[in-house]
């Protein structure tokens, strides 16, 4: 039963860490947009992150016509 003297502080420590993380997340405005993030993950815009693709994507952007044409 004496193990509890170690387990309680351990549990306490973990929950303190959780609460600190939560304070950080609120203060960095992570709860400001509850709907948008759910969709953001569905947009596959990580092409440039895939090795080998990065160059091609960049080239395409550079060769594309200037945007202020309109």
């Amino acid at each position, binding site marked *: 039963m004496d193990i509890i003297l170690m387990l309680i502080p351990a549990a306490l420590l973990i*929950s303190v860490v959780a609460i600190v993380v939560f304070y950080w997340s*609120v203060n960095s405005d992570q709860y400001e947009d509850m709907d948008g993030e759910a969709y*953001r993950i569905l*947009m596959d815009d990580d092409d440039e992150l895939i090795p080998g693709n990065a160059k091609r994507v960049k080239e395409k952007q550079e060769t594309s016509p200037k*945007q202020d*044409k309109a």
Partner: protein
Amino acid sequence: MNDSNITDAGGCFHCGLPIPVGGPVDFQIDGKTEHFCCQACAQVCQIINDAGLGRFYEYAPEERQWETPESAPEDAEIFDHFEVQQDFVTQRPDGSLQAQLLIEGIHCPACVWLIEHTLQQMDGLLGAEVNYTKHRLKLSWKPELLKLSDIIRQIGRIGYCALPFEEDEAFRRAKEKRQDLMFRMVFAGFVVANVMTAAVCLYAGDFLGIDERWSSLFKWYSMAFTIATIGYSARNFFTSALRAVKVRRLNMDVPISIGIGVSFAASVWATVTGEGHVYYDSIAMFIFLILIGRYLELAARESASSSTRHLLALLPRSARVLGESGEDEKLVPLRLVKSGAILRIKPGDKVPVDGIVISGESRIDESMLSGESLPVHKSSGSKVVGGTININGTLTIEATDVGHRSVLSQIVEMVETAQNTRVRVQGIADRIVPYFVAVILALAVITFMFWIWQESAAMAIMAAVSVLIITCPCALGLATPMAVAVGAGLGGKLGTLIKTGDVLEQLTSVDHIVFDKTGTLTSGKIRIHQAVCLQGDQTGLFSQVLTLESHSEHPLAQALTGYLSEQGYRSSDYRLEAFENVPGRGIEGLLIKGNEKTGLRIGSLGWLENAGVSITADLRRQMESRESLGLTVIAVFTEQELLGWFALGDELRPEAGSVISHLQQAGIEVSILSGDRKAVVEAIAAQLSSQHQPPLHLMAEVLPGDKTERIKALQKQGMKVCMVGDGINDAPALAQADVGMAVAHATDVSAHASDAVLLGGLEKVRMAIELSTQTMRTIKQNLGISLGYNVLVIPLAMAGLVHPLLAAIAMPASSLLVIFNALRIRSKMKRFETKLQQEI
């Protein structure tokens, strides 16, 4: 877009709207020919594609019905001015600038993706993040590489309108309040988790046996946490209860505080003396649940109010100021314009400030003030009001009232006064609280007396305290907030944005609904009801009318040209000479085709009479009968004779009749309020009431300022009034009414003044009422559940039979029951929505 215009080409590639009869605008997109409904959509799509972001169309919903793309505000450069930027731009230590923009035209998550990716391609941009819920863009950029106006322009090119968003004081306070509540809620959760660990050990010990040493440790451990959560998370309950008691009132926080206070005192006593039960777990859970309820309520309310836009957008941000010489025109930020300054207002501009016309002549659309849909003629000496729109001529004005003294600010002030003076009706839960508290205290006293007479003082105290503990106001405290949170959250999804929770409670008792006529019951768009050619060649005459009218910018003329070209008439056959705009009367000109010359006038009946053109009495009666139907009649005539005439007017919304008859069936009286002539309002009422029996109450020829008085008069008769309106002139009345609802395209001021905003047709009024009925019913059921729980457990407590484990299970159980019951509103509303759709 008109239904008759649809071809089955499958809709515009960009916005999804049907393609007009004139045929699609075709463009080569990525090697394929795509069809667009208009030039604007095609251009936006091309820019998106050229930027390598064509995947936007894969992400966007397939079945889309967007509006025509927005574009950047014309005076975007004004936001590069240092003085203007002071309001909304902050500088970071590394020299980069940071600002928030409000974006209009976001309809789907793909828009968020598109905006962010487009901006990321700009040099000098450090960060762009779009908040999808609030339609706001957080931006940071390097001022030496990039100008803010370029960013705004770029957003405009891809079809969105970005405007600076100013975080005002109220907004910041609301955010702080929400974050504070969030912290307190999560801290309470953290305490619950820890106290519960100890509680499980203690309960297990109760049944299986536990060392005195350990049980005492767990009790002290729980106590430490409970003190922390009472001190931090529950602090506001106590301060609010204290404030209420000081003014001799009882609110929900009073029984909550008594519950927490008594349970805690009893538990501390038990911990210190080692006798009796501890309730730390119940206290912690109780605080946590109440805070969850409060947070959900706040979040639901906030999401609704943030969707209504800003008032400032109504005024232009810049003014063209003339120098001493009267010539060099400079674009100056509005806040720098002082009274006495000489300003120039070009056609299409918004009038920046209140002022007096010095020179020039023009027509000004003052519909935002007067509700009058026809523009007002202004010439030297006339007063103009900030926020109104200059239609055709250039005016030079001297600014008289700027800032807080302007008419617009005064209207906003009127709205605020009305909002502040309106008596807030107490919620149903708050009305129960005094009885609840009184009964509980009485029962505790009775229990105490009984046991002191029957047994010992110790037993009496134990039983009385357990009565106070077990009578959990938790479910009672959650009954209203949970239902309101679900109801208000649902409102947003169903197209009825509820701004304050008590609207849902009040809407059920509304017995009189007042509809504004123009823009609310009617669509606000002018349509042609009758086109008459009196003699000869109709095609020729109407083509001539089209040629002449296409040179006028008057709204009636625009409606007419739209109608005629839709009917297939072409103006290309005729050449126009000597065009003249006769203010207040109409237009005239010389139409030439080959050797044929016709001098034609198009204008009001008054002009026709003045010009001395004789018409038969029969014809006059015909035209006057159209006027009595609420239509405007325009005559087409030469110097000698009348050639034809048109009857134009505002059209009723298609659903208006059925909505009104349903409301009347539900026992609600319906009024129509309008500034228009009596004959017009009567005509509208006649069209509406042909479908049903009970008469409509009509309030015609009401001056804008008197609308509030009319609502007050109804309220004095003891009626609960709901007002549905749209214009700025409706705003004070919307605020005065017990419930104010603004329709979708309502001006910002009236959306601000109202309690609910209806996105969609008038059937949303029924939706809102149904939602409030369901919410109210759920609140009552919830109160029933929580009182039922108390009726069940109080006898046990009075008998002194309550074990803390029973409290720990029964108290949260009653709260959960209340929460689940509130969630049922969703399925009920879904059923109503399908029913409503079938009816339409």
